[in-house]
């Protein structure tokens, strides 16, 4: 009896120490789930989910505080990817978010810009270039299309322009979407 008690206590102590040691030795900084969620989000930093950027939203999803269907720029694809990652059921997006918006970039009408720097302060990815009383411009390559610069502009000189389709970025449509009549629709010549 005594031997059993001593043995078990000893084992409990040994494993306890081992677990305690490994908790310190193999400690993981940050939240790996939040990192994975963050990697799936589109990083527009637009705040449409109600959080101040993609990272806070990812953390909220990781802790279970937020639903997975709050990201309109990511659309259904992101929602499904999140559902896959977290083992949750897919949720429908809000009616407004569900309709896919064409990708766009902000463009500043430079003749109208008064150089107030308000948009520069609003841009989450530093994609607007300019200084006080100098006209501003958007670095199109870096713009995520989050539209956060539009409300602060006092002269309404920022517009969202859809990204022009180029042969390089053109995508073959799915044959499903267009029915069986393929892209090879006959064109009349001669």
């Amino acid at each position, binding site marked *: 009896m005594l031997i059993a008690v001593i043995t078990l206590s000893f084992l409990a102590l040994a494993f306890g120490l081992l677990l305690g040691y490994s908790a310190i030795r193999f400690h993981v900084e940050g939240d790996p789930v939040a990192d994975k969620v963050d990697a799936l989000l589109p990083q527009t930093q637009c705040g449409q989910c109600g959080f101040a950027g993609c990272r806070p939203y990812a953390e909220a999803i990781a802790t279970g505080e937020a639903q997975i269907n709050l990201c309109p720029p990511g659309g259904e694809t992101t929602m499904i990817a999140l559902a896959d990652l977290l083992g949750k059921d897919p949720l429908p997006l809000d009616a407004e978010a569900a309709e896919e918006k064409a990708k766009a970039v902000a463009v500043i009408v430079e003749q109208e810009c008064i150089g107030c720097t308000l948009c520069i302060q609003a841009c989450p990815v530093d994609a607007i270039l300019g200084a006080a009383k100098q006209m501003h411009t958007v670095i199109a390559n870096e713009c995520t299309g989050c539209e956060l610069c539009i409300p602060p502009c006092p002269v309404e000189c920022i517009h969202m322009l859809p990204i022009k389709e180029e042969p390089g970025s053109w995508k073959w449509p799915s*044959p499903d979407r267009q029915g069986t009549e393929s892209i090879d629709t006959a064109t009349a*010549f*001669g």
Partner: protein
Amino acid sequence: MAVPRSPGDGIDRYGNGIRLGPGKIMHYPPTDRPQRRLYRFHGGLHLPDNKSQSTARPVESAALPKRLILPLQQHIGEAAQPLVAVGDQVHKGQMIAAPHGAVSAPIHASSSGRVVEIGDFPIPHVSGLAAPCIVIETDGRDQWDPGLPEPIIDLTALDPEELRQRIHNAGIVGLGGAAFPTSVKLRPGPRHRIHTLIINGAECEPYISCDDMLMQKQASRVIAGVSILRHLLGAEKCLVGIEDNKSRAIAAMTRAVADYEQHRMQIVTIPTLYPSGGEKQLIRVLTGEEVPSGAIPAHIGIVCHNVGTAAAVADAILEGKPLISRYVTVTGEGVAEPRNLEVLIGTPACELIGQAGGYTKAISRLILGGPMMGFTLQDDRAPVTKATNCLLAASVTEAPPAAPATACIRCGDCAAVCPASLLPQQLYWYSRAKDLEKAQEYHLFDCIECGCCSYVCPAQIPLVQYYRYAKNESWAQERDKKKAERARQRHQAREQRLARIEAEKKARLKKKKDALAKKPAAGKGSAEDPKKAAIEAAMKRAAEKKAKLASAGNLPGNTGNLTADQQRKINQADARRKEASPGGNPEGEGQTTESQDR
């Protein structure tokens, strides 16, 4: 997919069975049996070759068009950047757009004339979209650029790198259709020693005969180019693979090789089997080696070039001429006189149709490329580019509209014919379900889009389109991911910067506060407020100065030594002011009045 199908089973009207069991495929006659041992790739199709229509007439040079439209992107890689402006005079062969980036090619003026426009024009692309082009109005003189490089006769006298640079500057890209910059392929890197150069003269796609005609007419030029390529790659042997349905080309090439006494070069006749002209398939047929999935031939010591590319290389080195023209097949029931033309790059497609006798009534659609891998050209004003090998003016029977697809019956015909040994059915399911990861697991990117699976599919499913869609989606996802990662980094950098600025501001404020807290402790007793003390000190200094001046008999210039008239005016003004507002400051105001009077 433009697949010729007749109603019904659609294939047997040509007398070619397609359900080929192993062993039934190689059908070349015993007399033509090559000495070299050949191998076969998986699958493949015997297609009616339909090449005789365009090979019957001799090759002609296409007439000089009024306008040449030269797209800035005619190759894989980065688009070239214009070197000319609207209004500039250009000579034939002058570089008008410079390469940009590691994988790129320059563009040259195909004839002399004036640059009239630089802007978006329809290009030969499946989307039918417009892209940046340089438009040259030709002057008809066809004057060569005097600044062309000198011809090089002795290859060994020059550094290979210099030759590669010459080929790069000549704007040469793979003319077989992919348009990959040739100079990049000629630099396999020190890790890959190239032992075999393969020259692709297979031209397996039906209707196309431009390589065939090039080999017939300019065999020695091709062979000269091949020997330059071999020299640059340092390959010991060189195999030229030509399908056995091009007997005249084989004869011409064999003669040319004999003239050159190229003991390291061998013309190999290979059986006609679509798609033996695919790079990996041709390597398999000629050497028996398989290029691993996701690898390029250089990884197994082989480099493959097209015959047209070899001819262009010969021009660039031996004559100093850049790539400004190529052979193009204009064929199909939709043109009156199908033929091959030597065409200046940038010539609009409609002009070539005109020189092939114009459209006939049978025209249903214009296909760029062959019936298997080509696409419908949506605007026949689009120009011929470096990659254009064929204009197929197809009739309804040649390229019938796609029949409605029915459900897959899992017959497995597609897997039997796939030359890349893939499982087209699986790829189809995953592509359709947008499960791109799974599709990639099934080697989606090894698909060469040859169209064999779509051709044999009894359910008429446009399989290749699904694969193209899945490939494009995969690339788009990759692009989006990269962009998102960049946005995340920039956002993080911004957050860090804002935090740093905030911290710096706080530190500054704290320092100021500390400094203020210290000051009163040092000067305690003199005054509670340092500002007040400063004012008092200043007033004291002023009073002292005034007293000093007064004691010296110096009155300020504006109140002392006044004339009688001035004094009278001052008095008058004082009196007026007193009337207007009793209790003003007569002395100060008096000064103003005085100065105004002056």
